[in-house]
């Protein structure tokens, strides 16, 4: 157990609990305005899109095909497992060919 890893895990846990308990706690004092709610709702999507944008930029044709396959299968089937499998298969297949 490395100390830097332990501290990182505690930081993650503290952040997670702040979110899980924070909304409940704040409701004692204020109502979440629709504007703040709209901002909070956007955060997960923006974070995921940011990771994808940079991953796509750093990747090559196998990664692009993998991302495209995952997006399409997810949009069609709505099954995250099927989509992820499709993406991995696409990446592995193209890497073995290229």
């Amino acid at each position: 157990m490395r100390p830097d890893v332990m501290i990182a895990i505690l930081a993650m846990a503290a952040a997670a609990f702040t979110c899980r308990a924070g909304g409940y706690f704040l409701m004692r004092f204020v109502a979440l305005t629709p504007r703040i709610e709209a901002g909070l709702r956007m955060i997960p999507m923006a974070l995921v899109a940011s990771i994808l944008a940079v991953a796509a930029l750093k990747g090559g044709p196998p990664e692009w095909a993998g991302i495209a396959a995952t997006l399409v299968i997810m949009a069609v089937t709505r099954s995250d497992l099927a989509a992820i499998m499709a993406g991995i298969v696409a990446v592995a297949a193209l890497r073995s060919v290229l």
Partner: protein
Amino acid sequence: MQTTSVATARFTAAGAAAGARAALVLAPTIVIFGATFGLIAATAGLSLLEATIMSAVVCAGTAQFAALQLWSDPVSWLAVGLASLAMNARYILMGATMRGWFTGIPAFRAYASLYFLYDGNWATAMRDRTAGRLDAAHLIGGGVTMCSIWTLATVAGHAFGGNLGDPRRLGLDFLITAFFASLCIAFWRGRSDVVPVVAAMAVAIATDHLVPGPWYIVAGAITGCVVAMVRYQPTVEAKAHAS
């Protein structure tokens, strides 16, 4: 027994058991993602003990996968902490909806329950409440069950991970990216998302060029949040209700 007027919520072992049973429906999905996390954590250089403790203590799938994406040696607690904050921001909203649940229940029980607030048990608790079953222990019963399954699956995935050979050849290093791509579709809510998302991606790419390390993720998430707040317009119906 039929009671229609419940002044304070109940918090019973039977309620916790109902929550645990409801969570079992989600077990197969949790096992697959937990094992996947363990596997990727092994290839990212986390020991079995470290991965297990992370799953047991943090117990947040998206935040843990994001942390692996940002992993380095030594790891930046600030970077993974901020990623956890951003990934779990949705729980601020879900937690806020729990305010009415714990009326008359000691604060310790309420906050202990909220420690185990996940998407799955929040949804089953909401469903139960809509059906008129008002036992507040549902949340913690489901949450502890889900966290236990997630942690055991992490152990299994990590133990198995060392025997797979080169993860790149199998495309397994792509697993996290694929996971985030699938979330991208799951989170998508419509055309109003376009501008905040494009802004977030642009800022993320620019930040990645300018600042080394994982800060582009935080910059993108904040950008999306701010743009969505600036662009927020009350709907006509909401205005009509307000006036």
